[in-house]
């Protein structure tokens, strides 16, 4: 936490007209309780210090007092926009130790839900980022498609955001009978409406001028700061976990890893918009080929992982999420650690914003796609 004395100290050392401005913790442009202490010289940013801890709920410590079946629901509250993918990472990590074969139907259901979650997350980012930049209309257009996905989730999983649909060994319920019909309706809606995204934002001259050349992140910096997901792929770093370390059935699917080489905000924007189309492509491949069979494998009632260490990484909508479990052979994890994509992506903000203007900071923060509960946990 930033103490009062430190702020005064900063003032006294500079003495050349620098101004310190606090953005957040309650600020409409930070989407959560992110506190940025920005040192300004005129309008130019000299330094950004993110101050975290306002929404720290000690999820890692909480997980250590919950059993392997119980702790999965807590992880929905980390990156709440890709809650299903968080759950997916945890069950994959637990299944490593269980040595159980997952039925093919469960694998396909999980991947379908993952990709739907990814589209929903990118839709929300698209609308919210445009709203930060001052355009209010795109928000409603994005939420129209997102609402269709949320309805599908509500019908099959029983909740709209924090689904808790994965269990070790498979999924909780079978797909709702309407699922295929509803997904096809969504695909049709998306394809009919996706050109509006280009009309409203991608081809808009004001938008392009505000994004192009703003917040340039070089590929070397992206690697050294540990960036992942669309932030690193916008700088030309190939880091899609679905391609490099395939899990579930991703190695049998045909989709492209979206790469842009410019490294600026516009490149990161383009990566996410194109990624939505790739997710649509994956859903189209799977929706008519859901294999019959069980949706959950038979597992023991009381789950105990053998002594050892387990690590599993997945690609969430924001980047690489890693789950690391140490088990001592009991029903609860001895230690659990999450490697969240948001934390590394936030740490690069100081690097890309230095020397830029404060008005561009919102564009940079918007394209980093920060989810604060994921950073703090």
């Amino acid at each position, binding site marked *: 936490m930033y103490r009062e004395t430190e702020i005064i100290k900063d003032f006294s050392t500079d003495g050349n007209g620098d101004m310190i401005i606090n953005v957040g913790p309650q600020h409409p442009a930070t989407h959560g309780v992110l506190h940025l202490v920005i040192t300004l010289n005129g309008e130019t940013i000299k330094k950004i210090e993110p101050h975290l801890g306002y929404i720290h709920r000690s999820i890692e410590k909480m997980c250590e007092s919950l059993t392997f079946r119980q*702790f999965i*629901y807590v992880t929905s509250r980390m990156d709440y926009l890709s809650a299903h993918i968080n759950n997916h990472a945890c069950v994959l990590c637990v299944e490593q130790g269980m040595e159980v074969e997952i039925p093919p139907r469960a694998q396909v259901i999980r991947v379908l839900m993952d990709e739907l979650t990814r589209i929903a997350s990118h839709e929300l980012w698209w609308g919210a980022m445009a709203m930060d930049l001052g355009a209010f*209309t795109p928000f409603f257009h994005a939420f129209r498609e997102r*609402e269709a996905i949320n309805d599908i989730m*509500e019908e099959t999983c029983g909740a709209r955001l924090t689904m*808790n649909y994965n269990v070790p060994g498979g999924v*909780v319920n079978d797909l709702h009978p309407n699922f295929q019909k509803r997904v096809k309706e969504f695909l049709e809606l998306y394809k009919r409406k996706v050109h509006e995204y280009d009309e409203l934002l991608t081809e*808009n*001259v*004001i938008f392009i001028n505000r994004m192009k050349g703003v917040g340039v992140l070089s590929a070397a910096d992206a690697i050294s700061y540990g960036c992942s997901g669309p932030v690193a792929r916008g700088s030309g770093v190939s880091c899609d976990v679905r391609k490099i370390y395939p899990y579930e059935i991703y190695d049998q699917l045909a989709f492209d890893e979206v790469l842009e080489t410019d490294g600026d905000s516009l490149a990161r924007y383009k990566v996410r918009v194109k990624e939505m189309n790739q997710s649509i492509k994956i859903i189209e491949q799977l929706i008519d080929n859901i294999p019959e069979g069980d949706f959950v494998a038979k597992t023991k009632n009381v789950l105990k992982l053998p002594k050892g260490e387990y690590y599993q990484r997945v690609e969430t909508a924001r980047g690489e999420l890693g789950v690391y479990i140490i088990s001592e052979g009991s029903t609860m994890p001895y230690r659990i650690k999450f490697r969240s994509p948001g934390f590394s992506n936030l740490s690069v903000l100081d690097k890309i914003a230095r020397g830029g203007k404060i008005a561009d900071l919102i564009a940079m923060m918007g394209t980093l796609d920060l989810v604060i509960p994921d950073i703090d946990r």
Partner: protein
Amino acid sequence: MSVKKYIGDAWKGAASLLKGMRRTGYYFTHHKEIITQQYPDNRNELDLPERFKGEVVMPHNENNEHRCTGCQVCELVCPNGSIKVIFKNDLMPDGKKKKAIDKLVYHLDMCTMCNLCVENCPSDAIKMAQTFEHSVFDRNKLKKVLNKPDSKIMDGVE
């Protein structure tokens, strides 16, 4: 050349702005494609799917009987401790005492609707209801007793 480029850029910029405005204008004139719902007014037509997780309830039949045996699985499996089972001793007709549930206390304020209790209940005594408007003025009102007063266990449920 630079003047020509300047005018060209201005022209392109104006065209791109008009393109976006046309899309906005399209929805301004096509009211049927607007999907906004007027929430508190359409409360009666709201149709929530049967799997929707709103709150935990215990269904009773017409004789005020439920299916809960008091096995405490829901209490054990709940990650937040939102369920507490309190027992009593029923006096049977033959003079013997039988253990039965007195109250199944459910703390809605602690519940995260993870569905683990409903999944694990061996006698299907509890289920998720589709209600979602849970706000009350007093926090104590969120502490609920799921079994109705003077309710008994259904015959044949073990």
